[in-house]
């Protein structure tokens, strides 16, 4: 059973529908007991880091997540879920969960590509250049693109955890992995077939 963590942050239903489509068995929950029982954890999210942490902390969901991670359960972070897995976010100057060392930064104000000014948020389809192979990206063409919408990006402290990089004025870490965790900045649930493939791969992944 896959647990999708419900913390009042947006796109839970989109993730649920994508899992239905690939035949994944899931439960939407904020109950620590159910998280403990789950085989896999998905930590989604859209919205702001400050509000998300203000909701998670009193519910002790930050602690529950740390416990799941320590227990070796395969975990997938999505978008805001990925950003607050790091130690700190520049968004609302928020202390986050800290499963992975590093911070979440805001895109610089004047982003350009050649002579073209780039828009913020980074909204639309972009590719992910993988630094190495990973079971969660198995069977996905290197040219495949994923749907992004964000103004902040994860900046892990250690290069070793960077799994994939995306170019938008700067090169930023769009996928990271650390032990039994994979976390992506894009939305696999809204990224067509490559996104569904990634979710399928995650559901089959043992976290090693």
């Amino acid at each position, binding site marked *: 059973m896959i647990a999708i963590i419900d913390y009042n942050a947006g796109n839970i*239903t989109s993730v649920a529908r994508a899992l239905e*489509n690939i035949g994944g068995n899931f439960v939407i929950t904020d109950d620590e007991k159910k998280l403990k029982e789950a085989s896999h954890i998905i930590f989604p999210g859209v919205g702001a880091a400050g509000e998300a942490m203000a909701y998670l902390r009193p519910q002790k969901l930050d602690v529950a997540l740390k416990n799941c991670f320590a227990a070796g359960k395969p975990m997938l972070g999505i978008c805001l879920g990925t950003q607050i897995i790091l130690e700190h976010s520049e968004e609302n100057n928020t202390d986050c969960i800290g499963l992975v060392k590093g911070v979440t930064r805001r895109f610089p104000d004047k982003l350009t*590509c050649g002579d073209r000014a780039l828009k913020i948020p980074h*909204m*639309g*389809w972009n590719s992910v250049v993988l630094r190495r192979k990973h079971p969660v990206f198995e069977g996905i*063409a290197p040219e495949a693109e994923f749907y992004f919408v964000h103004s902040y990006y994860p900046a892990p402290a250690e290069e070793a955890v960077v799994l994939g990089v995306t170019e*938008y004025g700067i090169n930023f870490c769009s996928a990271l992995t650390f032990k039994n965790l994979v976390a992506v900045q894009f939305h696999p*649930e809204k990224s067509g077939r490559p996104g569904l493939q990634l979710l399928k791969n995650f559901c089959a992944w043992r976290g090693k």
Partner: protein
Amino acid sequence: MISKRIIPCLDVRAGKLTKGIKFKGNVDIGDPVEAARQYYEQGADEIVFYDITASSDKRDIMIEVVRRVAETIFIPFSVGGGIRNLEDMRKVIGAGAEKISVNSAAVENPQIITQGAKAFGSQCVVLGMDVKKVEQSKKTPSSYEIVVEGGRVYTGLDALWWAKEAQNLGAGEICLNSIDADGTQDGYELNLTRLISESVKIPVIASGGAGKPEHLAEVLTAGKADAALIASMVHYKTYTIAGIKHFLAERGIKVRNIW
């Protein structure tokens, strides 16, 4: 680098497409969910639905359409038309749409943009702008004016001012429709699109006037648009989304090629 988005637009009235959409074998499809599925499979990057249902008692039919679309396609889609308040937004987003677009409701009550952005995030709130070229005046220094009710009513708002204002109020994107170009199939309003796109930080979707792939190439380069809305040129099977993308890619415009 980010791809330019190609976005088919579907008009829906009381749960049915208002124009037949012809796909392979000349099948006329009246079901918006089926049309959305076909465009999803043909490589649309996003889909826009406009609910043009006149009577409010039939609006809930659209919510059911949204729910079915969300089960069927796995790309972002937005819903506009008839969204007047936070409760309307909540229903549409709750049913599975990524974005809602507000147009005349935002002209009447600009705070709806801020309320929507606060409740669901800026990325959820698209400002739809219907624009007409007018004489330059004190009221309309950009010589473009915001119109409502399909272009019949002039609001007195300068289009450039309104775009910036909406961005400040929290809109995450602008869908910019030229009423002058709309339906002509003679090409997008390039000057208007460039003016707005260069003046705001948020992405701009160009709308109105697309008749052939060259028009998309123009608006995505000279027009500085981040995305292009299309309707008739694909609804009537004159072009396919894949064909349009191939055309754009050959001209060095980055588009999503695998789906």
